[in-house]
């Protein structure tokens, strides 16, 4: 078995994954995306990888690399379609709405004028977010019209064009915390509750995490959420409304877990490694079966590429 791991920095997460593969005797190759030249018609350098797992910090790099590798016939975790759906909050919401997964109500305005109407349609407080973004950056709560107008004017004046798609979300009156569930191959393997005195509860913003037991209902909700976006491995953020129950807020395709291992007592990197190896096994078998037909690896894997959800 030969696994590639795409990275920019090697954070604790990447080191634990590399060590996890190595501990199982698996040949894992860290690939710094800043060093690679991709030849779009030459799959040869990639032929030996049974799976490539993407752990780049840069969405731009991940998305370019994984799209190219899939076209060259390499099974990637997560798949390119899942990365693009998860990375863009509008795409995530659309996928959840299509799949009938409960998610907070979202309105979208494309001009400064319609943006304000989109927010007003939700009422206050309302949440405004960049469609591309992470770690709680630029996630804003407008408590009244003055605030909404100011936020919108700033986005349209100072922001790049992708800030001109105004994504407004109803505010969920969560109880001082939200829940993050780590979902691997459709199973909820661990979860944390993130507490903060601030309404933004990202751990990157200082929230305190504690282990959280996943109920069967929550596990089912998370399974449907990752299925909706096609992710093999993801962290699902849940907002709980005391009156209306649990909503899927967003899904992270390249989850950070370093602070959740001790908190939950679950070997999260171990579970990720095991699942990647299961996918690699399927990927290898598919290739062996079809290579009897004497086609190139490129064509074989395109025809029979195991997709997310095929391995549970």
């Amino acid at each position: 078995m030969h696994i590639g791991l795409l990275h920019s920095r090697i954070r604790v997460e990447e080191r634990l994954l590399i060590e996890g593969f190595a501990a199982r005797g698996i040949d894992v190759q860290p690939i710094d995306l800043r060093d690679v030249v991709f030849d779009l018609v030459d799959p040869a350098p990639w032929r030996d990888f049974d799976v490539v797992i993407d752990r780049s910090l840069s969405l731009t790099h991940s998305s370019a690399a994984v799209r190219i590798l899939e076209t060259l016939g390499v099974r990637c975790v997560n798949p390119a379609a899942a990365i693009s759906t998860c990375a863009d909050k509008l795409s995530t919401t659309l996928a959840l709405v299509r799949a009938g997964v409960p998610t907070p109500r979202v309105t979208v305005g494309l001009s400064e004028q319609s943006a304000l109407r989109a927010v007003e349609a939700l009422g206050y407080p309302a949440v405004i977010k960049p469609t591309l973004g992470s770690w709680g950056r630029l996630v804003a709560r407008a408590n009244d019209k003055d605030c909404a107008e100011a936020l919108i004017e700033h986005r349209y004046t100072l922001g790049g064009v992708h800030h001109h798609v105004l994504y407004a979300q109803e505010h969920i009156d969560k109880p001082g915390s939200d829940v993050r569930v780590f979902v691997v191959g459709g199973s909820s393997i661990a979860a944390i509750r993130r507490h903060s005195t601030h309404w933004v509860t990202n751990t990157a913003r200082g929230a305190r995490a504690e282990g959280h037991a996943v109920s069967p209902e929550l596990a089912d909700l998370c399974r449907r959420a990752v299925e909706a976006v096609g992710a093999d491995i993801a962290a699902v953020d849940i907002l709980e409304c005391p009156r209306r129950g649990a909503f899927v807020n967003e899904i992270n395709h390249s989850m950070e877990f370093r602070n959740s291992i001790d908190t939950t007592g679950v070997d999260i990197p171990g579970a990720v490694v095991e699942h990647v190896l299961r996918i690699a096994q399927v990927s290898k078998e598919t290739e062996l079966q079809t290579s009897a037909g004497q086609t190139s690896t490129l064509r074989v894997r395109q025809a029979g590429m195991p997709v997310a959800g095929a391995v549970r």
Partner: protein
Amino acid sequence: MSQTATLETTCPECAASITPPRRVLAGEVLRCPGCAAELEVTSANPLHLALAPEVEEDWGE
């Protein structure tokens, strides 16, 4: 797998001497105890450090 703390280099920002606490991999980021700069390991053996790039707008989970 053995050479813990046998590699040493200096901080490119403040020239403090740096010895990683354990075996490091290329791509890891260390913080300089002298000036708190974030330093990326550009080569693990021999140890080379460079100022780590700033966080970009598209970085995240």
